[in-house]
């Protein structure tokens, strides 16, 4: 028996294939690509607005007058105020643009905190089990019973007595999201951990004598995180909706502290019946675009990550190269077109159990 002597460096993927979103974008076709592109555009607009708000917005979010005097209240759209002004005399466009900053802040606070806490608890509960795990499962199940908006109201009263500053409002919305979403991360990571715990590679680490900490962090954690991107996007959308909901029922952020789409919608309620559409339309649209953008991106990234849901271009009649099978002396060393990377991770069977080896 001789060792196969042909050695090649494994084919390195090019940079554009390794960047997370760009890779998926290149991979997608048809409707899935359309959804992803639409989502990315909406998300891009939302994020750019948040970053460059002071440059884009013609006025400040709490500005009611400029050099030429007061804006006036409920003014229809005009060259000076493209989206008109609100009943409080603010410029609608500026408030819509600045509102994206507040929204992104909530997303960051809510998602990072619940992510860290939920993942840590999930890893612990899933790997070690025991009474603490059982208690956590029961407690987190109980939390599911609370409507998140109710929690947000309670938190906003606790944090700022109902009258909120920027951080008061952000923390109230973010806090309720954290409380509601920790169980989600916990559940997902716990389930994955329990599954991975039984995988032979974890057992093989055990057999080698690895300590539990090493197994959890080196072998379990990284393999358990693949469903997280989808939950993160869903949670981000939910966080924005909760902030808007809080503002809408009157627990919003004071207009002088920050721009809050929900608060503006609340104040626009009475305008709608008197034919003043612009005060409600634009903040509402902003919420829709932000949430829809995030959802579309999350949904299509999820579809693309799953080989069973991913659409592919049809191939021409009986084309391509035939796989080399293992009987070649020395084993197969060269991959087919596209390198072995093209195969799904470790899988040589597709969803129908057909071997699609190269």
């Amino acid at each position, binding site marked *: 028996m001789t060792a196969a002597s042909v050695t090649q460096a494994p084919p390195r993927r090019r940079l554009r294939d390794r960047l997370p979103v760009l890779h998926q974008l290149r991979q997608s076709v048809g409707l899935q690509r359309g959804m992803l592109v639409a989502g990315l555009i909406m998300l891009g607009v939302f994020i750019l607005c948040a970053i460059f708000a002071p440059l884009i917005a013609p006025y400040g979010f709490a500005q009611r007058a400029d050099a030429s005097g007061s804006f006036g209240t409920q003014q229809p759209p005009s060259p000076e105020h493209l989206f008109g002004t609100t009943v409080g005399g603010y410029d609608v466009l500026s408030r819509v643009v600045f509102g994206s900053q507040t929204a992104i802040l909530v997303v960051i606070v809510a998602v990072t905190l619940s992510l860290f806490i939920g993942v840590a608890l999930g890893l612990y509960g899933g790997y070690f089990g025991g009474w603490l795990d059982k208690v956590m499962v029961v407690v987190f199940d109980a939390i599911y019973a609370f409507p998140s908006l109710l929690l947000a109201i309670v938190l906003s009263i606790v944090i700022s007595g109902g009258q909120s500053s920027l951080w008061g409002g952000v923390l109230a919305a973010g806090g309720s999201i954290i409380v509601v979403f920790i169980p989600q991360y916990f559940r997902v990571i716990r389930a994955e951990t329990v599954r991975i715990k039984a995988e032979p590679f974890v057992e093989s680490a055990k057999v080698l004598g690895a300590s539990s900490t090493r197994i959890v962090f080196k072998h379990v954690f990284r393999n358990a995180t693949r469903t997280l991107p989808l939950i993160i996007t869903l949670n981000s959308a939910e966080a924005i909706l909760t902030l808007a909901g809080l503002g809408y029922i009157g627990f919003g952020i004071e207009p002088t502290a920050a721009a809050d789409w929900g608060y503006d919608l609340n104040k626009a309620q009475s305008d709608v019946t008197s034919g003043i559409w612009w005060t409600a339309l634009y903040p509402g649209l902003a919420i829709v675009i932000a949430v829809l953008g995030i959802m579309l991106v999350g949904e299509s990234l999820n579809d693309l990550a799953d080989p069973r849901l991913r659409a592919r271009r049809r191939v021409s009649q009986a084309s391509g190269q035939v796989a080399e099978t293992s*009987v070649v002396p020395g084993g197969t060393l060269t991959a087919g077109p596209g390198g072995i990377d093209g195969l799904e991770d470790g899988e040589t069977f597709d969803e129908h159990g057909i071997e699609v080896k190269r």
Partner: protein
Amino acid sequence: MSTVVDIRNLGVSFSTDAGAVKAVEDVSISVERGEVLAIVGESGSGKTVTAKTILGLLPETATTKGAVVLSNREGTRESDVISISKQKLRDIRGTDVAMVFQEPSTALNPVYTVGWQIAEGLQAHSDMSKKEARAKAIEILGRVGIPDPEVRVDHYPHQFSGGQKQRVVIAMALVLDPGLIVADEPTTALDVTVQAEILDLLRRCRDEFGTAIVLITHNMGVVADLADRVAVMYQGNVVEQADVKTLFAAPQADYTKALLAAVPYVGHGTVRAAERAAARPTNWTDQPPVVEATDLEIVYPGRFGRAGFRAVDGVDLVIRPGEVLGLVGESGSGKTTIGRAIAGLTKVTGGSLKVLDAEMNGIRERQFRPLRSRIGFVFQDPASSFNPLLTIAECVAEPLVIHGRAKDASSARARVNELLEAVQLPRAYGDRYPHELSGGQRQRASLARALALEPELLIADEPTSALDVSVQARVLELFAELQREFGFASLFISHDLAVVDLLADRIAVLYRGRLVEEGTGTEVLGSPADPYTQRLLASLPVPDPVAQAERREELRRLREAE
């Protein structure tokens, strides 16, 4: 004789992320009425794809060319499966062609009774009343050898054993009396003794029902036992087609020769084992054993209020330094449990198990951990025993890092390279990820990892059962070579007597948690004393159609004698 299915110039391609992949290139096969055609080949040779094409079961990502002409039992209707509409395809499925799947436990729906599932096919193709369909289901269950079919027809799949489930699946295929049955690895998921029974049943399908069978398998023994004609597939093409006796006696294609040479025979290893035994020093038996089990008992705790499951029951065995003990048994015989107990993965509940002088009954992980560096473990499935996110070099370096022989994976690289070369993998493979290696290469890397600390004891749990025959042969050879070189003692667990025979100094046979027979290969395989061992040995199909026919007779006599 007339042709049941005629495959002409079939080509199948799949669209994948990396472009088109051709699974079948240019295949022409035909099957006559009442004939068993075996399609043989290794993973990726296109045999399953070819078979699925006959039923029109290819996924949407597939494109096909050529023609698959299927005629019905009477020969009055012909249809090209590739070009007909979905509606017509539904009509011919079940009536003209039926399928028997590999895994009987997933082919049956667990929430319906087997009678309902058989009747479903009947009612889909005729306006039979429920009563008639039930009567027919009872009749067919009786004919495939299910005892008490009147009662069993109302049972759910989980109430049947694995072999019986496969009988039910075959009954479902037979109930509409199709001219052709496609059987995709129908016995791979079954134990050897059950496999022999299912093969008998399939033979009866041909003889009594006059059904043609397309049998897809990688097991040459099964081919020799059942097939009339064989088509050997390699890389999407048929490389050889011949009568079964001609093929085994005088294979033409090089690939067929290589494939046949790689199949292990019972009796090949006894010479080598005798040589090894002769070379041992005289006081060898006085050395303290590496593993010593006395009256070993392992009970898995049952659910609340129920007795636990006794997986291992009063087993005594000894492994001395440098000795390979082969542990053979069917699924559920407790062989894997014993291996896991020795590696400290399963708790010992009774008796005594001494591993490297440590008593495993009641040991704590903390006390056992230092001993782990002296034990290696090779897992059954090489695909899942590597962390998919670490490179092969990092995986092989794990034991070195854990036991403080190296600071991190990169400083262990020199030693890792040595190990990779010892298992005949190019050192550059260390930079690859596990999924970038083939099954055999992964299993060799797995051996490298197990040997990294030069253990005194290596536990190999079915290390080759997930591999193709030719790859299996090379991994086994490597294992024997490494064993000579490193001189470790080994517990080699397998369900395949021929594989164990190749490597083991002594063979122990387990049956339902009890050790029924133990001895050297010559003793156990040459003149088995226990009736179970006899049956196990007789059930094992040999890759030789003439010899297999004789063995079949012998097995029948054994069964009647019981």
